């Protein structure tokens, strides 16, 4: 059996180690409660700028 979580676009920054393994088609053994990722907070809701999307010009 399998659980699949789908997050809306640009809402989660998945932990880099998990993404890096996956990009090598390598599964990562995890347990319930281990950190998965962090919310990408957006300005209007949090009052914080979305730094990920900022570009220096």
């Amino acid at each position, binding site marked *: 059996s399998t659980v699949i979580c789908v997050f809306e676009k640009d809402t*989660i920054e998945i932990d880099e180690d998990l993404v890096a393994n996956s990009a090598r088609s390598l599964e990562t053994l995890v347990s319930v409660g281990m950190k998965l990722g962090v919310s990408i907070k957006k300005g209007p809701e949090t009052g914080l700028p979305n730094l990920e999307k900022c570009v220096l010009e």
Partner: protein
Amino acid sequence: GHGSSKPSVTDSSDDSTTEGSNRSSSLFSRLHIHRHHRRLRLHRGGSGSHSGSHSKLHAAEDFAGIALVKLIGAEMKFKDKWLACISFGEQTFRTAISDHTDKPIWNSEKKLLLERNGPRVARISVFETNILSKNNLVGYCEIDLYEFLTRDSDSDSEMFDLLDPSSPDIIVGKISLSCSVEDPIETEKSFVRRILAIVDYNEDGKLSISEFSDLIDAFGNQLAADKKEELFKAADQNGDGVVSMDELAILLAIQQEKEPLINCCPVCGEILEVSDKLNNMVHLTLCFDEGTGNQVMTGGFLTDKQASYGWMFKLSEWANFSSYDIGLKSGSRSSHIVVFDRRTKRLVEELIDAKIVLSMRAIYQSKIGLGLMDTGVKELLQSISEMQGKKMNSIESAKDIPEFIEFFKDQINLTEIKYPLEHFKTFNEFFIRELKPGARPIACLERDDVAVCAADSRLIAFRNVEDSTRFWIKGRKFSIQGLLGKEICSTAFMDGSLVIFRLAPQDYHRFHFPVSGTIEHFVDIPGCLYTVNPIAVNSKYCNVFTENKRVVSVLSTKDFGKVAFVAVGATMVGSITFTKKKGDYIQKGDEFGYFSFGG
């Protein structure tokens, strides 16, 4: 497979019957005696459609091998829709139903196992079919296959009278059939070509050293495993580092004569007798035919289901639940999926028996295999899972718990289970065991902007769907809309991030919330119960995530917006139960539900 009914061909010529010796004596001098195949001497160049690779028998001791029986058609005395059955030994097979006619044509072929001391008489029955009531037996005949195969005739086919079952003196029609025996060398070569096609993962028609290596491992021969490179080099005649199918088939056919490579059947796992090469090849060929649905005629009634059941049971790593004794630690050498352990930061091997891997590849990664799914196998997977559910809910199933724990002793931590083992009255109760509070610490519990893993599992995660299909999900029809269903899918999900948690048999089977929020709703999506093993997920022919039974729920969160949570059922473990309901506010790390045995 044929694991439970191993052919028992012997090599002793003393067993020849007097009648058989007389019948064959006039032809005996014409026989070409092949030193290694003296049990199956064939007269080549006979007439009929199978000349060259199939022919007639010439001696009683030849009555061993694979016979190809073809039910061609019949001439009946009235018009109807007809089907014919052939029963031989403990097997019964049936044709498709003909058109409405008095001259039905079937052209259905079936390979039968001939054993020297086994059955000789095949009974053929012809039925008129009815939609609303049972099929009626109209006529039958009994044919001694030994007589048929040794008769002095240039033709492969012959007409036989069909007799009235209540008055055998009355002829009710005629049936035309042919029967020939397959050349054992052809059997051997075609078998090798077919099995090699299964390990030819990149489907380039050639085998690399690693593909070849997997095959030898599956054969369970340690000696051969140590000589893999040597064998590979012997086959690679032009030294280009790959071996064509035909080259390798020839090599293995020759090698099998000198020193058998195949010690166990990669389909059913049965240990094969080293001294009985032909018998082994017959066993393997029939096992593969049964598994791939390669034959036109299907097994009839109960036997068909039982045969398919045996095969399908191996199409999932969950097969280990009912086959500890032939599982990971014995028989053929294990294959493996490499997984990165996040806690220890090491690569670990997840072992799966090589024959299960081969079986799964055969069905999930081939067009033929997936074609089977359209012929009732989906329903079979469903019924196998339901049956397994009933079994695992029975009181008797509790006795399997200690054996299961022993089997996975390095991977199940008994000290973290909430209740003592005596608490579990059925296997399913143990399977959905709860853990002690605090057994799974939740990362950054006070911060709802940090998401956590939802299950003890093998995780794979992608920032967008494009990456997921590039690196992992190969089913051609996969899409987010297909996964979530139209009711739930929104534009924001379409290009969202995807995290897949795959549970293995030994895992803690409860799943938890990855984020904090409110459960908005649940949507049941009915479907199949394919395995969710990477072998199926990575197959371009199989669309596990969009075709399997699943429940989609939507969580509304402050920090992540909407999060779709999809619980996907799989072979054997198709039962999905939720312990929270719509409208509940939940904290990340809280239990959400569990998977258990059942449909």
